[in-house]
């Protein structure tokens, strides 16, 4: 009872406990803000890594597999499956307008089905905007109606989704490169992109200003190696495609290395489209020409049809379905599919079925390492906190030595004295950590306005959208993380108070009473 009274009085009448309380509050808030921002950053990174992949991929690289429409139909009949889409993954080179060559990853996709599986439409960068993005305070974004005709942007958006562009000669297959692929878009301090403006002096002495906006009039020459159905290199094929739009997935590697091509066009280039299987006629086989009536060599005979092939089928699970469970479903569906097309598709044992986590293993591993690093730093801060509380409590116990002697003279036992200080640590830890969590919540929820205010008043921009790939500082606080930090804060205070408590409890009451 006396412990509770003295804790209350010490806490309200002395500056030192208040200082320790503030120290606990600030360190708790600092840790939680850091963890929230880092955690938010890593979470965004993970979610972005899932973009363009779907939940599960059924893959037979290079050669691909046929009858994928049948596989997709079978998959979409499953209750776990939301949608499935065919794609081709390969590598190639692109030639930029300035004649630079660049190695890229090429994906052939069917826009609408790809969108159903991956949310591709949301990644298309050029589309009409009603409101500016969060950091675009001066409305500089070219996608706003005051800068670009919204109808034009709506057409560009639709072109991107369908991977076509109509330059007056009818719609033709087009490509959608990542926003960083061409190097012709400049990232701005407010987090958006502005296409390159080229200025060249002309022979008349004037300056020729050229806006290079790829989705309007740009094109890319795509070179890749076609394979035959046995996986042998056939020809190097080059074809120039108009640019329909550009995408931004949120992962720099994807946005700087991937070019999406319309599926049928890529199938055609790679000899993976539907084709007749022919057999040359014998050297002595002839037919009668119906027009001339003469004997002519017999043409090759069509002996069958080679169906179109893709290298992957991407699958999206329904809400709440875990990717591992979805992979198992895909495995069983593929097994039945392979039995139905025995000898014509890879068997179920060899086919590669990966979840998005498995495909992003490197990224996820890096994310986990980052999280581990944060927790390590968190541990060091906690450890520092222990010493902070220990030194403050040590000093307070010294200051209150005589009080301890008085209490012992009044009949208090050593356990009661130890509990007085331990309880004091508990109170400071609980109050300080709770206030720290509340402070962190306020800071995290307002971190972007606070950051903008600091930027406006001091010119210091910590989270620079032209450097970081995400425009806004992550501003969500995880309550389980908050609970861990709160518990750790309380625990560090109790641990920090433990040694001074033992010291107080072991104090000789006579010496304590004589303490000056």
């Amino acid at each position, binding site marked *: 009872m006396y412990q509770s009274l*003295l804790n209350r*009085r010490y806490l309200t009448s002395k500056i030192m406990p208040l200082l320790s309380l503030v120290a606990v509050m600030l360190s708790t808030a600092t840790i939680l803000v850091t963890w929230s921002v880092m955690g938010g950053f890593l979470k965004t990174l993970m979610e972005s890594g899932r973009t363009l992949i779907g939940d599960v991929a059924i893959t037979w690289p290079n050669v691909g597999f046929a009858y994928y429409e049948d596989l997709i139909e079978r998959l979409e009949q499953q209750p776990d499956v939301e949608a499935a889409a065919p794609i081709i993954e390969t590598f190639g080179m692109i030639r930029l307008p300035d004649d630079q060559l660049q190695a890229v990853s090429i994906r052939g996709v069917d826009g609408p089905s790809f969108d159903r599986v991956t949310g591709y439409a949301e990644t298309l960068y050029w589309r009409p905007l009603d409101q500016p993005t969060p950091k675009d305070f001066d409305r500089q974004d070219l996608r706003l109606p005051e800068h670009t005709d919204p109808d034009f942007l709506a057409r560009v958006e639709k072109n991107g989704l369908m991977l076509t562009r109509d330059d007056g000669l009818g719609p033709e297959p087009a490509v959608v490169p990542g926003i960083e692929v061409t190097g012709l878009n400049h990232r701005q301090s407010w987090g958006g992109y502005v296409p390159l403006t080229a200025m060249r002096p002309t022979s008349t002495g004037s300056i020729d200003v050229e806006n290079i906006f790829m989705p309007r009039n740009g094109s890319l020459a795509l070179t890749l190696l076609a394979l035959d159905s046995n996986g042998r290199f056939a020809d190097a094929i080059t074809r120039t495609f108009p640019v329909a739009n550009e995408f931004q997935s949120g992962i720099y590697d994807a946005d700087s290395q991937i070019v999406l091509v319309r599926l049928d066009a890529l199938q055609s280039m790679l000899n993976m489209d539907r084709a007749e299987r022919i057999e040359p006629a014998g050297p002595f086989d002839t037919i009668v020409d119906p027009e001339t009536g003469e004997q002519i060599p017999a043409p090759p005979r069509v002996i069958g049809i080679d169906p179109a092939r893709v290298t992957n089928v991407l699958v999206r699970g329904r809400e709440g379905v875990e990717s591992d469970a979805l992979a198992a479903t895909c495995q069983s569906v593929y097994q039945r599919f392979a039995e139905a097309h025995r000898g014509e598709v890879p068997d179920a044992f060899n086919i590669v079925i990966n979840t998005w986590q498995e495909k992003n293993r490197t990224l996820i591993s890096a994310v986990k390492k980052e999280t581990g690093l944060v927790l390590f730093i968190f541990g060091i801060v906690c450890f520092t906190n222990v010493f902070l509380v220990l030194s403050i409590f040590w000093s307070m116990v010294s200051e209150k030595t005589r009080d301890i002697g008085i209490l012992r003279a*009044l009949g208090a*036992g050593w356990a009661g004295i130890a509990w007085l200080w331990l309880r004091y640590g508990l109170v400071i830890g609980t109050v300080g950590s709770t206030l720290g969590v509340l402070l962190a919540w306020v800071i995290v929820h307002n971190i972007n306005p606070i950051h903008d205010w600091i930027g406006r008043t001091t010119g210091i921009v910590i989270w620079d959208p032209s450097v970081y790939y995400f425009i806004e500082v992550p501003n969500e606080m995880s309550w389980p993380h908050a609970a861990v930090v709160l518990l750790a804060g309380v625990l560090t205070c109790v641990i920090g108070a433990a040694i001074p408590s033992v010291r107080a409890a072991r104090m000789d009451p*006579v010496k304590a009473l004589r303490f000056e």
Partner: protein
Amino acid sequence: MSDASPILAARTLHKTYRLGRVGVPVLRGVDLDVQRGEWLAVLGASGSGKSTLLHLLGGLDRPDSPAQASRVCRRCGHPRKHSPGTRTSCPECGEPHHTITPPQIIYEGRDLSTMSAAQLNHYRSRDIGFVFQFYHLLPELNIVENITIGSMVLHGRFGYMAHRREARARAEALLDAFGLSHRLRHRPRELSGGERQRVAIARALINEPRILLADEPTGNLDRKTGHAILDSIEQLQKSQGLTMIMVTHDPVIAERADRVVRLLDGRVVDHLPEPAET
């Protein structure tokens, strides 16, 4: 226990403080009997061991055991290098070494050395009231809290909830008796020295102890205030039948007690005659 037996008795109390390797023997075999309801004054010079004796009687400290006492010479404090029995006298002062009999502090027939730590805490809390020269009030607590904290320590968290009203009423009654009823919410720093000492006495009496141990209770006060404090104590002691042991270096103050003993060279050396009743 019969009324004739002493309420508190001390037998062969030795106490040595260590200063590095050298010991400073403060008490060298104190024997003392304190009768029920008696006001005993222990008169002694500064450093004679008066406060130490009070701490031992109050269970705040423990007397030297025979083994502890044999580590140094009882006369000069010189450490004994050899085990007891190998040398018979101190090489420093020539004092012959001798083993002491085990010390005893007997309260109501029970030896404090046989009590557990918890029993000793209860003894200090329930049966003893301490009054110090420098008041030793807790500066963060107000006057009422400074007094009732003794009851909190005695009863613990749940026990105090049951005794709260009773403790508070007694605290207010004591403060009223000391003329401090208008100071209930004041902090110690807002009171004069005399008022602080009255509060300290009230705190010592909150649990209605059998024995009051007062360590120079007027030593920090002017003579007039000191006597007023002694008047208050005397009145309480007489009206409640309280046993009081007061240590002082002032013979004038000691004269007010029922009996005076003198502490000299660590022993109770003489008993002054009882002062005549006035």
